[in-house]
């Protein structure tokens, strides 16, 4: 049962990864190239020797990017399916497709959008190599806190459901989540390592492309996963109920 869901989640994630790779090639790579050109220009102006190329740019932008996005997509789809297994049948009367779509929206907000407001994606040339450990730590702390707050908010909405009705319960829970985010955002240190003369346009377009890649991944997973498990879960609930009433 769960194994089947996991396998389907990973396959859906892989397909989402292929689409996200195409998106990244078209909208992301031009920005990466511009950022690297800026980086090289700066190094040259400073009289530094050009960085040794371990992997060629063609490989990085081709098979390397594909590997990264596809593995990430499959892993995301797999984890998504496990969360779905917990959530299905526990979120009111939402069916497979509704549960899947709702989880994708909540996950996209909690894992990508909200943490990204505090620690946004950065192109090459932005970021000091010496602070990589520190930045990575903060990045994952932000995601962990955000996801924990989202899980708590969903729990809160469920508890308030009967008293307040679906709409008001969801609004109260969303506000509670936003309060937690505002507090955490104020508590965690800011990071700004964008070089003074880095193009604002390239930075903006890079971040929009990065958000777009994630949107493709989460939208495809959220919509496709519900569709591919609908039948499996329908037969299961019928079988279960039929047994119960037999």
């Amino acid at each position, binding site marked *: 049962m769960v194994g089947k869901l996991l396998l389907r989640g990973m396959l859906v994630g892989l397909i989402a990864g292929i689409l996200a790779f195409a998106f990244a090639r078209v909208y992301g790579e031009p920005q990466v190239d511009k950022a690297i050109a800026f980086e090289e220009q700066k190094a040259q102006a400073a009289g530094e020797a050009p960085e040794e190329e*371990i992997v060629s740019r063609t490989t990085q932008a081709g098979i*390397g990017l594909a590997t990264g996005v596809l593995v*990430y997509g499959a892993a995301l789809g797999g*984890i998504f399916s496990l969360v779905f297994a917990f959530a299905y*049948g526990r979120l009111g009367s939402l069916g497979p497709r509704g549960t899947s779509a709702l989880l994708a929206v909540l996950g996209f907000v909690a894992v*990508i959008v909200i943490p990204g407001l505090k620690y946004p994606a950065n192109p*090459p040339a932005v970021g000091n190599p010496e602070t*990589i450990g520190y930045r990575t730590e903060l990045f994952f702390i932000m995601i962990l806190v955000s996801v924990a707050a989202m899980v708590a908010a969903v729990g809160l909405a469920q508890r308030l459901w009967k008293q307040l009705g679906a709409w008001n319960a969801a609004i109260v829970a969303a506000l509670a989540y936003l309060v937690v985010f505002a507090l955490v955002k104020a508590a965690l240190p800011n990071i700004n390592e964008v070089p003074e003369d880095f193009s604002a346009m390239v930075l903006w377009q890079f971040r929009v492309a*990065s958000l777009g890649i994630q949107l493709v991944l989460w939208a495809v997973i959220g919509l496709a996963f519900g569709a591919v498990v609908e039948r499996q879960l329908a037969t299961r609930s019928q079988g279960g109920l*039929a047994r119960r009433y037999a």
Partner: protein
Amino acid sequence: MSDIALSPGAAPVAIPVREILPWAIFGGLLLLLAIYFIGAEEGATSLIRGMYVHEFVHDGRHLLGFPCH
């Protein structure tokens, strides 16, 4: 009664947690490890020597939003 039970609109039945847990622990751990290799290996921490993994997935790492050098 059975007509209602067998209708496609039947209420969703939750999967028991004990059925999910083994998959969630082992599967989830492996999948997180995969994300670690794409997102953070040879960056903040390193299990393998050298910079090959980092350089190979470099573009994906930046574009997926992970902190990078």
